[in-house]
């Protein structure tokens, strides 16, 4: 039987803004600038409840108070979980499969999503540290971190 839908008229369309320029926020800006300028990952510090947390935002999710301070943290991270990515979001096979990981830091709530590099067989619980781009190439972005590599 003939496919009836093929005979119906269609109307072409699209649906999104042309582009977005996202607001980073005052404290998250400091977070990105410390990656760019110091090659350091810092965490937000809530002086009300004493928690360090990532991602950086200028309020405390846990106790509901304003946060306006970043603190240095141990740059050594731990792989909380990882996976090996073989297909992109459109089902296309990647030329170079890679390891995606959720990385946590000592005494810090939350963590970061990033790639693993220089590793054959990653393990959950493995200790890793960030590998940054050359400082002159850094722009203040999470992509200033190339990947995390095993220690």
């Amino acid at each position, binding site marked *: 039987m003939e496919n009836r839908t093929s005979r119906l008229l269609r*109307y072409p369309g699209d649906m999104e*803004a042309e582009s*977005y*320029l996202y*607001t980073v926020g*005052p404290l998250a800006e400091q977070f990105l600038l410390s990656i760019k300028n110091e090659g350091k990952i810092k965490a937000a510090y809530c002086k009300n409840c004493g928690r360090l947390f990532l991602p950086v935002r200028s*309020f405390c*999710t846990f106790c*509901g*108070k304003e946060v306006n301070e970043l603190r240095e943290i141990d740059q050594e991270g731990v792989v909380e979980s990882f996976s090996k990515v073989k297909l992109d979001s459109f089902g296309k096979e990647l030329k170079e499969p890679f390891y995606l990981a959720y990385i946590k830091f000592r005494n810090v709530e939350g963590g970061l999503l990033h790639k693993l590099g220089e590793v054959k067989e990653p393990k959950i619980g493995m200790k890793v540290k960030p590998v940054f781009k050359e400082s002159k190439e850094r722009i203040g972005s999470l992509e200033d971190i190339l990947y995390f590599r095993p220690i």
Partner: protein
Amino acid sequence: MKTNINIKNRVAIVGAGMTLFRRRLKETPQELAFEASRVALDSAGLDVKDVEAVVIGSAPDAFDGFHMKGEHLSDGSMGYMKPVKRVFVGGATGVFTAIAGWWHIASGLYDIVLAVAEEKMSNARPHPQGLFKYIWDPIVERPLNPNLIWIFAMEMHRYMYKYNIKKEDIALVSVKNKRNALDHPAAQAAANISVDDVLKSEVLVWPVQRLDISPVSEGAAAVVLVSERVARKITDSPVWIEGVGWNLDSTHWTSRELAYPKYLEEAGNMAYRMAGIENPRKQLDFAEVYDPFDYKELHHMEGLQIANKGEAPKLTKEGVTQRDGDLPICPSGGLLGVGNPIAAAGMMKVCELFWQHRYEAGKRQVRIKRGYGLAQAWGDLMQVSTVVITKT
């Protein structure tokens, strides 16, 4: 006469807060929601641990540029590890967020609920008006590439034609609201302007001119809602929500009556019945009517039966709607004066109810004689209205 409806808890507003309304703000959407939430909780003397549930209101995801915007905002809205729900009825969202907060408590489910509305309008490029392209029917409307201003120009024209209303009479609303906003500390578009300024401003889409319209804004606003049991413990001056109402016209713009918002009459009647209001013109002390355009304040006053059909301009001309008039409309300065961060703008009106009833509105203060205030918003596909009635 009050309708006998089954409400487990009477609901009070016990705190309100908002951010500045501006074209661009340096904070993220979550941070804006947080600031309004924090101020609202502080004004109620409550903390995050006291909040049992959170209701979030925000207009299309495309504005902030995050899908699942309610979930995105939940951390900033004190929603961590709590029952959180987003509601969304376009421009009418701000008032509807308060309504949803109300039913969370009226149903008996919770005693303390935070209702937060936020909008970030500067992320989308080149201009957020472009995002409205996607509210039109893709087959019968979008080929003509309309935007909201084009459509409201036709509604305004029809309203003017049907009741023989002059542009200079409509402009009085913009003059009044922008002047009222001079006394609002968060206002973006407060100004001392004349009718002549409005009539000489740039024509955008005739008969809509630059000063007939509210600005593009971002910001957040929040209220704390509690049951009567909690209200009696924590405050001497609760502001009671006495009635809520909402209603939708046809999905199709071309199936609606343009000169009169019948759906708003229905929404108003729902709220009036609940509150026991038989004559809104005589019983309300003031109303925060939705005013994204100056003619919409008049249109909405008529739909709310505050004025007879075609007669809202007359009340405006006579000074009845001024802050010192018999029935002040938009004493806050409204969207025309304070600004229009979609959902947050409607919630700003609910905040104004709180401040006015408690005599905390400073120079904006109106006289509370009979006890009732009303806030209204309008939106979705331009066919929904939402109404909240409060009482001291």
